[in-house]
């Protein structure tokens, strides 16, 4: 059966225009991201999309479906599984890959996981280094990927504001912020020597608000953990810690049922929940407007030391 018969009703692009006859900012961002996805798929030998299951990955994946339609997505998805991901996330990941029809690769740093690497015994910096950064570099090398898409945005963190859309990495996967290629217009320089690679950030110009609005407008499925409901949590001061995997409770500590949700999805030991009654995307957007703290504030790992994201990126993190 032929794909993409014109069975869908023909639409006028005026549907894309606002009342002043202009494209909305979401359409502009979408068009820019699709352009980037198509450039990379056409210029590199072996691209891959890092799929982290979170809301940004969900948007990136939808953009990839749009970019190559009616053809399938011409690269695999790669999930770096630390072994500390929420069970709901893994289920969502597998369902999504099946529905989208994309090839899903999962990579775990098995030796480190088997050795019992965890953020409580090690510090979070070394834990991330082994289970995320090292695993990522190993996976890229194993599959010989020369370009990897990531869902990072420039508004997330100060060092990410300086990131290029095509971020050049040397043969050890390292980022050199003082020696980045200038990036003009929409002309991206993807030339690399053997062993070097490019990290590509198609969502660079999106903000957290843009991502949620797009999910709302496009009805993109996201993990249920983003929505508020009563969940058993360990309450430590302002922090709400979920019960997942081998959570180590303090002596005498008991979980309580708390109306809460996750604002960003990371590893269960390092991702705190927030008290919230936002149980729908409009409610999340409403909450976002009233929020006065950035989304990574609930990630323990970014606060270990001043500039810790920058250090991780230099070492090869996304």
């Amino acid at each position, binding site marked *: 059966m*032929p*794909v*993409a018969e*014109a069975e869908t*009703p*023909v639409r*006028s*692009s005026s549907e894309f225009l*606002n009342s*002043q006859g*202009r*494209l*909305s*900012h*979401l*359409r*502009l*961002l979408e*068009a*820019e991201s699709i*352009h980037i996805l*198509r*450039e990379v798929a*056409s210029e*590199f*030998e072996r691209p891959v999309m890092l799929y982290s299951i979170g809301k940004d990955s969900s948007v990136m994946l939808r953009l990839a*479906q749009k970019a*190559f*339609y009616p*053809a399938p997505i011409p690269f695999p998805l790669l999930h770096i599984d630390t072994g500390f991901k929420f069970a709901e996330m893994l289920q969502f990941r597998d369902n999504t890959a099946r529905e989208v029809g994309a090839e899903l690769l999962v990579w775990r740093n098995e030796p480190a996981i088997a050795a019992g690497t965890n953020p409580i015994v090690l510090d979070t910096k070394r834990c991330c280094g082994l289970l995320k950064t090292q695993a990522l570099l190993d996976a890229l090398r194993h599959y010989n990927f020369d370009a990897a898409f990531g869902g990072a945005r*420039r508004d997330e963190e*100060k*060092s*990410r*504001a*300086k990131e290029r859309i095509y971020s050049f990495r040397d043969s050890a996967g390292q980022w050199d*912020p003082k020696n980045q290629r*200038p*990036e*003009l*217009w929409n*002309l991206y*320089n993807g*030339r*690399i*020597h053997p062993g070097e690679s490019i990290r590509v950030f198609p969502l*660079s110009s999106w*903000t957290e*608000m843009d991502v949620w*609005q797009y999910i709302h407008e496009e009805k993109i499925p996201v993990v249920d953990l983003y929505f508020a409901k009563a969940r058993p949590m360990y309450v430590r001061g302002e922090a709400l810690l979920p019960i997942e995997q081998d959570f180590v409770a303090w002596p005498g500590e008991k979980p309580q049922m708390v109306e809460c949700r996750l604002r960003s999805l990371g590893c269960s030991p390092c991702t705190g929940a927030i008290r919230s009654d936002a149980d729908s995307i*409009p*409610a999340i957007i*409403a909450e976002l*407007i009233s*929020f*006065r703290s*950035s989304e990574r504030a609930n990630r323990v790992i970014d606060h270990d030391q*001043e*500039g810790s994201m*920058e250090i991780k990126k230099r070492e090869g993190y996304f």
Partner: protein
Amino acid sequence: MGVSLEVEGTRFEIEDFLAAEREKDLLRFSTAGSVDDGKSTLIGRLLYDTQSVYEDQVRSIEGKGTTAPGQIDFALLTDGLRAEREQGITIDVAYRYFSTARRKFIIADTPGHEQYTRNMATGASTADAAVVLIDASKGVLIQSRRHAYIASLLRVRQVVVAVNKMDLIDFDEHRFRAIERDFSSVLDAIAADTGTPVERVFVPVSALGGDNVVHRSDAMPWYRGPSLLELLESLPAAHDKLSEHFRFPVQRVLRPDQSFRGFAGQIASGSIRVGDDVTVLPSGRGAKIERIVTWDGDLEEAVAPLSVTLVLDRELDISRGDLIAEAQAPATVARSVRAALVWMDQRPLDVTRRYLLKHTSQTAPAFLSSIDYRTDLTTLAHEPADTLHMNDIGAATINLLRPMALDLYSRNRGTGAFILIDPESNATVAAGMVTAAYASAATREGDETGAWGPVTAGEREARWGHRGAALELTGPQALIDSIERALFAVGAVTTRIDAANDTFLLHPEFLDLAARVQTESGLLALVVHANQSAMLTARVEGLELSLDAENPMRAVAAVHELLRRVGIFISTEKAGL
């Protein structure tokens, strides 16, 4: 869904809020300034006063920096890297985001010192407007002129001149007006040089105290104009791509099965409807638009800058790098161009070297046949130059080793811009803007030695589409003939040296000499060792390939690939190679 929220004291239904969001457009602007003119403070203030900074980010810098205790050093909000915080400077272009009730903004924040020109050009390339800073206590410095020049060169039509640190000159109107006069005449001279009119507006501000940044100031009653933010909210989106001719660089051919063949790309300018006549360049073939395909359903019309997939009414040989253009107003197919260049690499421009020119979705080798001049940004004089150094701006004539469909940058920012890449280091070495396009390769205009001197390797390569090389082939005669036939068919200038010739058997050193003479003349010399083997060996510049002679189609293709890999042939297909 009945979710309501409160923004700035007003209650909204969330659906009303989302509807209002859909009405917002996007304005990108660049900022640049000299060291210490308070640019970071100005941006920090803009973000803070529009409530675009989160409390935890403010907490993380509170009490740090150079301000008095209890105050916030706004500059720390924008200095991203450790080296920057330690040295109190900005190193690289940083992008910032904020939003008001009317607009979303993206700031390209560029530093005023290290690698200033290259960073300013990067920021300006995507900007609709430029905010040029002048320190009121110091007057017009070279960095402000440089930023305004680059903004004009890159066709950023709207320039907002923020005269900062008004508090240091007691908010004095006369000094503000003097700066306004001085800089206006600078902008007129710049516009005359670049040929791009510069629309300008001046606003007196004090970033430290927040005067006229977001809110209008009481300190300057003589100024009745809008604040900086009000200005930014009211600027027209400078580039109306819809009024330009339709241009669609093909990024990728989508062919999921035999029944569908679509061309994926982003509309660079103009609009397109089903049934429109288009011309495919460089081939010049015509077709009609049959469908405009998107994941959200077919469209009957699409406008720039949407990313869509076009289906044509007939089978044409179209690949990545081709341009689909309006039939009534197609682009120029050029073999050479004159262009304004911003040089961005430590290694200066070298007219004897080959560069890669990336334009829309195509990349081709190019030679800079002459440097027309270098611009002195202080006097705007055009000086003769034989090279361009890092941060220099000049003009050059460039020969393209394969024809490219393009427009003048003054008419079309998308199809008139290019970058140059050093094929050895892979660095992006220059930004270019086409100022004239020619259908034939340029000779050195008015340059006697160029017009009458020896034919250079670059000129040969420009004409023949490949550089000189010796390809050694060992294997069956018939297969070697097929390989030469295939190379000949794509326009390669081949010669044959039979290694079994008596002279070469007696004097093997002559064989090397013969191959070298031909290689240096830009020919593709085939050094042939014919035998009856079932294998074919191809060797070029240290790379060797052994192939099954029983499969001639594959062998021919593999030899092509080998030549492409060592960079003898010009290819637009894979930038990674």
